[in-house]
């Protein structure tokens, strides 16, 4: 297991005014897996991801990478945020944005440039290296953010609803791009989304969260064949079954206060 989440809980505020965002989460992720996390709106998905990425300290329990607890952003992890327009630096070109996290790795310049070129090519943006992020469309900006995470060569790629802010057409393109990149590179992906179709389409397993304060409702194993395809996979009966299972798990349990 590369990532273990053990009784993770998170509460904001203290004393009488604290709100429990996550009650208790326990699940594990194997190396090289593609795990999706879904749940109803406001259930704490983003809080979970921020706890996993070390940006936020859990109130209880822990997240472990190769057995060591996560205490601050781990070296082996890269994070892709939801709003790409604010996560890329507007004063840097695309290439420099991608290269920026690599500065601390003290690579020789040639090696760094090669890594940047490689990851930009992997996301299909080899031509955009000298453009600025704000000159690109939303989908392209998110691809740059993915390239930046890839160039970092992480063990675990965390993605926080990365395709929520793009249109449906771009979203399917990005989903397939992500799958092809994941299949080419040896990386574990933890993908948070509110889109059930997306979760079943992409993942090896889907972790379904309960409404806030969330726990793990169930973990659904997605035994659909790979490589996945937008048309054929989504018309398989098994896809429909899995999708229904996840959907009813989320909808069946109404939120306590409506």
């Amino acid at each position: 297991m590369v990532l273990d989440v053990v009784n993770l809980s998170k509460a904001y505020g203290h004393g009488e005014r604290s709100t429990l965002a996550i009650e208790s989460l326990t699940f594990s992720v194997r190396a090289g897996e593609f795990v999706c996390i879904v749940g109803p709106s406001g259930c704490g998905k983003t809080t979970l991801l921020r706890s996993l990425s070390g940006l936020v300290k859990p109130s209880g329990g822990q997240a472990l990478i190769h057995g060591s607890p996560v205490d601050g952003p781990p070296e082996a992890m890269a994070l892709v945020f939801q709003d790409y327009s604010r996560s890329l630096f507007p004063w840097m070109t695309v290439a420099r944005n991608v290269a920026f996290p690599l500065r601390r790795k003290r690579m020789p310049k040639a090696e760094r440039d090669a890594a940047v070129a490689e990851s930009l090519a992997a996301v299909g943006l080899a031509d955009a290296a000298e453009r600025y992020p704000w000159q690109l469309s939303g989908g392209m900006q998110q691809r740059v953010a993915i390239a930046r995470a890839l160039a970092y060569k992480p063990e675990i790629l965390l993605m926080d609803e990365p395709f929520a802010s793009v249109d449906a057409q771009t979203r399917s393109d990005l989903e397939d791009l992500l799958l092809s990149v994941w299949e080419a590179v040896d990386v574990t992906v933890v993908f948070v989304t509110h889109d059930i179709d997306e979760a079943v389409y992409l993942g090896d397993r889907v972790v379904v969260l309960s409404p806030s304060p969330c726990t793990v409702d169930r973990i659904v194993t997605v035994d659909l064949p790979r490589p996945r395809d937008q048309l054929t996979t989504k018309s398989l009966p098994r896809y429909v079954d899995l999708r229904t299972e996840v959907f009813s798990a989320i909808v069946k349990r109404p939120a306590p206060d409506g």
Partner: protein
Amino acid sequence: MKAWAARAALQLALPVVLVIGWWVWSESNDSFFFPPLREIVQAFEDAWIWERVGSDVLPSMTRLLAGFGLAVAAGVAVGLLLGSSRLAYRAALPLIEFLRALPPPAIIPFGVLVFGLGDGMKVVVIAAGSVWPILLNTIQGVRSIDPRFVEVNRAYRVRARDRLCHTTLPAASPHIFAGLRASLSIAVILMVLSEMTASTNGVGFFLVQSQRGFALPEMWAAIVLLGIIGCAVNAVLVMIQHRLLAWHEGARGSALSEVR
């Protein structure tokens, strides 16, 4: 092509009319305070092309640049510090509020007392009077950095030095440049004032000398020169700003076009 020419004509019309009007009016009337433009131009040519450039313009510009440069260095450095620490900012705020409310000319007598009448005094006075807009704007710029940028740097464990040079400074630079523009105009004012009070050379000194000698055309010529200097340094700053902040104008432009 025609639209461009029409716009140029529209913009140039009034200045040309004003200058011609000034020429004609000052030629015909006898006012001592408004000598003929012709004489002013002559005096300008005599003094500033290129007779007194070395003896007066050069010292003035050197003091201005030294003082302003000092203000920029100190203002940005301290501004970065105070902008990054809530506590330091709150602690320093009353002092800053007092010092920036102090009218800059009041510093000149202090400068004369402590530093005498030389170049050092002028540089110190220019720096001390013009540092405040830079300082305050730098603080503002640092404090208003998009928290998402900070998170990205945390998530990727970016080193402190890289954070400062490649995130904090560029993100704050639009604010800093706004401060630079305001500071520059104060610096020019203080350069002139300090040369008018306590100097033996410089454009400000020449201006006051001409006034004392009732040499009106020379005085007007010096005023025009100071106007040109003021415009020129401002234009240089704007040019630098356009180059360094091209990304900012581009980013805002695309954001606005998305909203509309």
